């Protein structure tokens, strides 16, 4: 029973008790006294029972109240922890967005530099697989980027052909030793299979003093100055 209702009931019973007592005291007829006595007894018994229930229920109520307080405190603590976790999550999400954007920016910036070079250019790994190319190379070969990225360099550039006297490929040792190569003759193979002689220069790419790949810059051999072509021919 709620506290408010119980209080009202107790006041009613006390009022009944007082009225019954007055009636018992002032009643002139025997049946008045009998009724008042009965009423007094019933009210008194009800009051005693009400008090008894309260006494019996008190520990349970107290325990329930304590449990409710503990529960409320736990809920508050969990709420606070959730708020902190939510804030941390927002911070982490912002940090991730920032990192993603900065990496995209770096990649775009690196591509911008490579794409600004008008001569065909490609970046190769140490294993001589193509990792990056510029638009000039795509124009020169007719390939799409997806046709050549991650493909072996030999797909579009060869240093010698089977029908020619086979020369040792100078690229692997140059990359291994971190040496530059300048204006070496090579052959660019386009999408239609047409072969164009080019002058190839290799610039090793180092990451913390370790050669991780190279940049290959190609020039149309027919447009190169005569002395370059002559020196290239002398080397091959």
């Amino acid at each position, binding site marked *: 029973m709620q506290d408010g209702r119980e209080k009202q009931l107790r006041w009613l019973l006390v009022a009944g008790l007082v009225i019954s007592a007055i009636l018992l005291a002032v009643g002139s007829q025997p049946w008045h006294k009998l009724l008042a006595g009965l009423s007094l007894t019933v009210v008194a018994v009800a009051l005693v029972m009400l008090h008894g229930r309260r006494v019996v229920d008190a520990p349970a109520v107290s325990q329930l109240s304590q449990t409710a307080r503990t529960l409320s405190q736990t809920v508050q603590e969990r709420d606070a922890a959730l708020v902190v976790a939510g804030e941390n999550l*927002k911070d982490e999400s912002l940090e991730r967005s920032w*990192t993603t954007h900065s*990496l995209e920016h*770096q990649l775009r910036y690196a591509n911008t530099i490579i794409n600004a070079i008008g001569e065909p250019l490609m970046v190769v790994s140490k294993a001589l697989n193509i990792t990056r190319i510029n638009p000039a190379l795509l124009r020169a070969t007719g390939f799409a980027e997806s046709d050549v990225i991650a493909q072996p360099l030999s797909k579009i550039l060869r240093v010698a052909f089977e029908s020619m006297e086979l020369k040792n490929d100078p690229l692997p040792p140059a990359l291994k030793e971190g040496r530059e190569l300048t204006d070496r003759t090579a052959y660019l193979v386009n999408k239609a299979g047409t072969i164009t002689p080019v002058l190839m220069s290799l610039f090793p790419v180092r990451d913390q003093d370790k050669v991780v790949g190279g940049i290959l810059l190609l020039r149309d051999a027919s447009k190169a100055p005569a002395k370059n072509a002559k020196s290239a021919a002398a080397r091959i």
Partner: protein
Amino acid sequence: MKHILIIDDEAPVREVLVKALTRQCYRVSQAVTSSDGRRMIVVDPPDLIITDLQLEDGDGLELAGDLKKLLPKVPIILLTGVIFDAEVVHQTILKKVDAYLEKTTPLHQVLAEVRRLLGG
């Protein structure tokens, strides 16, 4: 509430910075171009400026030099994707701005630098 002006032509950068700085209880304004930035510091002077290096209509370092003449006490952070050699940063860039941060710097470090320059 301290006022920070961000000058950067890249919307995603501004967006993340605005969210992060607002969460740190700063008031944040944004400018996309250097001319916008110059206009805004007159209308609503900031307590700190964060500027990019490569802006559509100008150079961030040149802008920083001009802003320093107008608001000599306002710290400027150059936040850029162009990574300079440490020697260049010390000999050239840090003479024009109060801090140089690469955009690869973790966001919490950018915020820490903002707090340091604003004195806590």
